């Protein structure tokens, strides 16, 4: 069987789509250029996972959601963001349409911009232009080009110089239509600012084939700190490409906390460029694969700056006949003296048919650095099972405990209590 990978969307479509949303001319132009590139660029080539039969190009593009009051949000969504009092800074996008938004007055007064991306493109043109498709290039591959030509909306978060936000900024991207998710997130933290952004992706479409094509761009200016938490929970029908990219300037810090719990096939690329001297990143990922899904996770750090430090920690559990490839890549560039890179990937397989593969890769072009890696792939230890069961714990419960235990070292280090709790909940549901 061959999959038709030609895109059904042409210039007329993109023009019409962009005009109907009253997008500024520069954005329309960006989309059209991207569309042209999309025709010829190759697909991304995730190492050790064949995606040539995966559908990334045939999908229903648009759907709509309607603006609602907090009380009218679906229970699933409310559960994610907490009570109205807790959810003071939150954007909810339903089927590509912003449907709920709240931002505290005192946050606004500090010059913070938080809004959906299309509104930002109109109201803060210069800022959006400065950041959009810059960390992730349009011409990186076919999927980034398709993304740029067709992204529906997303979030734009801008934190001015020296502003330190204590309360997390939240977003929920919620889909209950069979249409695709084309979401774009920009987090730009200016020099010496600090912000925590937490997003949840949720979809309910189990059967109809659909596509998620997600790009996040994170910019941490000199001395800035960005904590980026994400819990992906897309249903089986979604084939997902998710590219989360960070750029850290001098002494900046980007911390990723990713819970990747999609039920469909997924290609995930999480890359951070440590541009400035003394910059730092830490990327923590937990994932559970189940059913017959196939996934490929790349956690990648480029050390460009001197004294830069990058840490990767990934723990994955594979159930049923799920299979996943975990590629950890630490690339220390020439000139990045005194930098440090460290990574750990651990995979626990629960069944005979489950497959997991951990590949730690260190690429070092500089002598004066330190780096290390650890990886393990294994099955549940029958003696641990015997021990737990010998105390009256059932086989299923013993497995559940071991899985929680296996993921705990990552979950417990997640930066936010809310992300932590959410992860535990999702894990609980997935291992049952």
């Amino acid at each position, binding site marked *: 069987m061959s999959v038709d990978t030609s895109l059904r969307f042409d210039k007329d479509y993109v023009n019409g789509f962009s005009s109907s949303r009253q997008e500024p001319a520069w954005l329309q132009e960006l989309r059209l250029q991207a569309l042209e590139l999309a025709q010829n660029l190759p697909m991304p080539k995730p190492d050790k996972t064949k995606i040539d039969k995966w559908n990334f190009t045939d999908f229903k593009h648009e759907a709509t959601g309607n603006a609602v009051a907090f009380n009218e949000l679906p229970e699933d969504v409310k559960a994610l963001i907490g009570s109205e009092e807790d959810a003071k800074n939150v954007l909810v996008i339903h089927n590509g349409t912003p449907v709920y938004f709240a931002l505290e007055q005192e946050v606004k007064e500090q010059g913070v911009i938080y809004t959906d991306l299309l509104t930002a493109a109109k109201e803060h043109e210069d800022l959006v232009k400065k950041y959009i498709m810059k960390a992730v290039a349009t011409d990186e591959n076919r999927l980034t080009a398709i993304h740029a030509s067709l992204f529906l909306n997303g979030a734009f978060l801008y934190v001015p110089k020296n502003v330190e936000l204590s309360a997390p900024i939240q977003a929920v991207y919620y889909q209950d239509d069979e249409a695709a998710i084309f979401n774009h997130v920009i987090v730009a933290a200016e020099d010496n600012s600090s912000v925590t952004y937490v997003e949840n992706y949720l979809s309910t479409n189990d059967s109809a084939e659909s596509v998620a094509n997600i790009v996040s761009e994170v910019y941490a200016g000199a001395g800035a700190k960005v904590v980026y938490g994400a819990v992906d929970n897309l249903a089986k029908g979604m084939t997902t490409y998710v590219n989360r990219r960070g750029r850290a300037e001098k002494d900046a810090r980007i911390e990723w906390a990713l819970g990747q719990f999609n039920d469909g096939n997924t290609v995930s690329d999480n890359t951070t460029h440590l541009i400035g001297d003394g910059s730092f990143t830490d990327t923590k990922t937990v994932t559970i694969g189940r059913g017959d899904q196939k996934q490929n996770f790349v956690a990648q750090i480029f050390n460009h700056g001197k004294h830069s430090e990058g840490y990767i920690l990934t723990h994955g559990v594979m159930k049923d006949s799920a299979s996943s490839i975990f590629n950890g890549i630490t690339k220390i560039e020439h000139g990045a003296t005194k930098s440090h890179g460290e990574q750990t990937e651990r995979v626990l397989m629960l069944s005979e048919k489950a497959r997991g593969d951990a590949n730690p890769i260190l690429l070092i072009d500089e002598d004066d650095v330190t780096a290390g890696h650890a990886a393990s792939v294994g099955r549940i230890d029958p003696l641990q099972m015997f021990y737990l069961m*010998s105390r*009256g714990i059932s086989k299923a419960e013993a497995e559940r405990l071991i899985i929680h235990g296996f993921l705990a070292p990552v979950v417990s280090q997640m930066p936010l209590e809310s992300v932590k709790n959410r992860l535990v909940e999702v894990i609980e549901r997935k291992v049952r």
Partner: protein
Amino acid sequence: MSAPNLKIEDLRVSIEDKEIIKGLDLEINGGEIHAIMGPNGTGKSTLSAALMGHPKYEVTSGKVTFNGEDLLEMEVDERAKAGLFLAMQYPSEVSGITNADFLRSAINAKREEGDEISLMKFIRELDKKMDHLEMDNAFAHRYLNEGFSGGEKKRNEILQMMMLEPKLAILDEIDSGLDIDALKVVAKGVNEMRSPDFGCLIITHYQRLLNYITPDKVHVMMQGRIVKSGGPELAQRLEAEGYDWIKEELGIKDETVGQEA
């Protein structure tokens, strides 16, 4: 509660096709403490592991009933729920699960859904038992056996026994690696459990634990079966004279399994 009864008849156990237990008979009732003694390599630990249902050991023939029910037909967790407990010689370490969470799961596993132990009651019980065993309360929040010293693991096994209140406990070399103070603490835990509703099988090759827990019956195991039984005085004689006199009496040259008389 009725007094427990464990009855083992002509039990044979193999590991990787090698027979280790070669026809063993033993009966333990509530209120009784039995000790199985014997040199290394005579099949003592195999007996305890096989009774609990260790995946590596295969029972090839014989019969074991626990309170009249066929123990060998039960899954490992069912054996525990029926009231059997094994304090292991080498307890597993399980990362990421705290001792307290684990114990609560184990207690609740025995109870009906909706009748789970309340958190307050659990903590009260746990604190009390840990005090009794002179364990630092911090152990409740450490990952299960992870990084525990040998002695800490053994105390933790006894703590689990006290919390789970089994009807019959098998203590597999609970005394190995313990200093005298820890030994006394462990003995205190076992003695605390003593009642007509509780039976115990202590597996050891030293008499010293039996100075603190007086057994009702003492058995000597060699070549995969019980070769001699007696009262507490048998343990004392073994301590004083070693095992050679028994070997002589029975004409055994090499007491370990795999060697025939």
